[in-house]
């Protein structure tokens, strides 16, 4: 049985449907990310789990118990807000202690748990600081400690790292993942940052315009995107239109000068999608000319003009010589590295 379950949840604001037909089962201890561009309904969904918004339709269940009937104050969920929403008139320790006070935890135990949780997020010794006198990263840790100290059944993170600079964000991602693994707290993260979703989560829910586009592990969503939206939102990709040539002995898939065996069941023109790092320069394949070549340390980025339109190629900087700008090349890839969809629409 799943731990947290969303069953065909929908939310409407007036005539506008913000979330529609959202079904998801989260296992205990799982780290799930809602990923999508702003306005895709991911934060609305999180707020419905938290209880700040009531779903227009559908049910939210926690351990089989209907959550929608429970007051947000009684749900026992830990939430980290994008703005952290720390209480500015309380010290770090008072902020963290607030949830325990509300639960009437005795003073001695409360103090001990506050101290331990602050130490866990790396803020031992900062107990008496006021939020305003802490850096963004430290405030973020206080917010995390405040949400975790109540031992929530589910931890909800609403873009918690978006206000930190890139370097700090990377460090916090690793730390967040470690803390979550150690505590085993079921976690739902809302983010628009695909790298963050991929590096943190067990599974990603890719959303667009209020609907789920795909649910899968980071690898699945990256390697086998279910729709054009997913493949474009998760990293860079090359889309080419290909046709089926039935004149040969076995049907072949043709894109410009590239061709490969056509998978069974494919009929009309299709869109093939290949990640830039899976394309190599070979002797045969799609004819292209390199327009720009950019060196990025550990890899090279090539922008090419091919027979089938613009293409991006990423090659590992393995020390071997790479083609120069203006050079004519052939682009080749293994058939298993591409994903196919009907031309113009999702597969």
């Amino acid at each position, binding site marked *: 049985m799943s731990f947290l379950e969303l069953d065909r949840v929908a939310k409407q604001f007036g005539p506008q449907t913000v979330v529609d037909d959202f079904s998801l089962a989260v296992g205990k201890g799982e780290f799930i990310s809602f990923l999508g561009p702003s306005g895709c309904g991911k934060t609305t969904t999180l707020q419905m789990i938290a209880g700040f918004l009531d779903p227009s339709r559908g049910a939210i269940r926690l351990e089989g118990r209907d959550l929608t009937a429970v007051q947000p*104050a009684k749900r026992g969920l830990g939430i980290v807000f994008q703005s952290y929403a720390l209480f500015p008139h309380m010290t770090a320790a008072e902020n963290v202690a607030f949830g325990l006070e509300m639960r009437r935890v005795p003073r001695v135990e409360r103090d001990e748990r506050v101290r331990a949780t602050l130490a866990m997020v790396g803020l031992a010794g900062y107990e008496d600081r006021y939020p305003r006198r802490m850096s963004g990263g430290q405030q973020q840790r206080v917010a995390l400690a405040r949400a975790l100290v109540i031992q929530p059944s589910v931890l909800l993170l609403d873009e918690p790292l978006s206000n930190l600079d890139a370097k700090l964000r990377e460090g916090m991602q690793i730390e967040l993942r470690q803390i979550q693994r150690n505590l085993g707290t079921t976690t739902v993260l809302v983010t628009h940052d695909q790298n963050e979703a991929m590096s943190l989560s067990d599974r990603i829910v890719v959303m667009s315009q209020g609907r789920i586009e795909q649910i899968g592990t980071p690898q699945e969503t990256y390697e086998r995107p279910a729709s054009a939206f997913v493949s474009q939102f998760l990293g860079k990709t090359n889309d080419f239109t290909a046709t089926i040539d039935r004149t040969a002995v076995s049907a072949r898939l043709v894109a410009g000068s590239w061709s490969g065996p056509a998978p069974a069941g494919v009929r009309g023109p299709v869109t093939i999608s290949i990640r830039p790092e899976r394309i190599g320069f070979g002797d045969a394949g799609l004819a292209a000319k390199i327009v720009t070549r950019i060196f990025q340390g550990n890899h090279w980025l090539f922008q090419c003009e091919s027979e089938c339109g613009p293409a991006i190629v990423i090659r590992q900087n393995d020390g071997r010589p790479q083609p120069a700008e203006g050079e004519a090349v052939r682009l080749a890839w293994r058939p298993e590295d591409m994903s196919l969809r009907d031309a113009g629409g999702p597969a």
Partner: protein
Amino acid sequence: MSAAIDTAPANPAPAADTRDTRAAWALTAPALMLFVGVLLIPLAMTVMLSFHDWGQYKGIEPVFILKNWHEVATDPYFAEMFWRTFRIALLTTLITAVLGAPEAYILNRMSGRWKSLFLLVILGPLLISVVARTLGWALLFGGTNGLVNKLLMSLGLIGSPVPFMFTETGMVVALAHVMMPFMVLSVWAALQRVDPQIENAALSLGAGPLTIIRRIVLPQIMPGVLSGAIIVFSLSASAFATPAIIGGRRLKVAATLAYDEFLNTLNWPLGAAVAVLLLVALVMIVVGSNALIERRYAELFR
């Protein structure tokens, strides 16, 4: 060319400095002169006036005596006036705080169109003269002819008119009405700085609505309430029009007392002493409480 650039920063810096200073003085001079001319000099003259002598037949004599100050300090008549002034100001402040803070909070939670409508309702009175607003109260409650009094009496709810005119209660009610926008605006400004997610955060940690108000919202808007209180207190203590209309001659406060000394008794030096004492007392109260507030809420003001 390059030599000139190289040596440039070393020498002209002090020269530019003095030029800047001179320009700054020149630019501020007109405003400064106005400030000195219409505020500092009259204020100093009032202070000097309070030390002059006065007699019914001899008028003002420019000598230095402490007669007026001695009178103000010893005559219980003046003590009564000043106590009344500060009692009324304090009560007015309390009423505006108790009603204005929740008003601002509710206003802040309203959605778009309602918010602007009610903000206009609250600020509207500021567009009308204090005199007109106070006279409105007099029309409603002024003796047997007051509209509300007439209505209540004809309904048989009260036997005699509600005492309003020439009472401290009437003065406090009318002043609270006049001062309300200042309190609401001050609390409103403090509420704008409160993170909109903070109540949700407290909610998610298990706090009930009353706890959220008491433990989370109130401490954060307290600086706003207190600065509003300072504004309301000082404006109420020095208010003239409302006490003059509601209290009239029968119930004087410091401001109307000074006015009467100047224009009716024609004892300018005594009036000056009253006015200066009111000013000094107010400045001390405001500066003192402001310092206290800033120390107490240091972490919120940063």
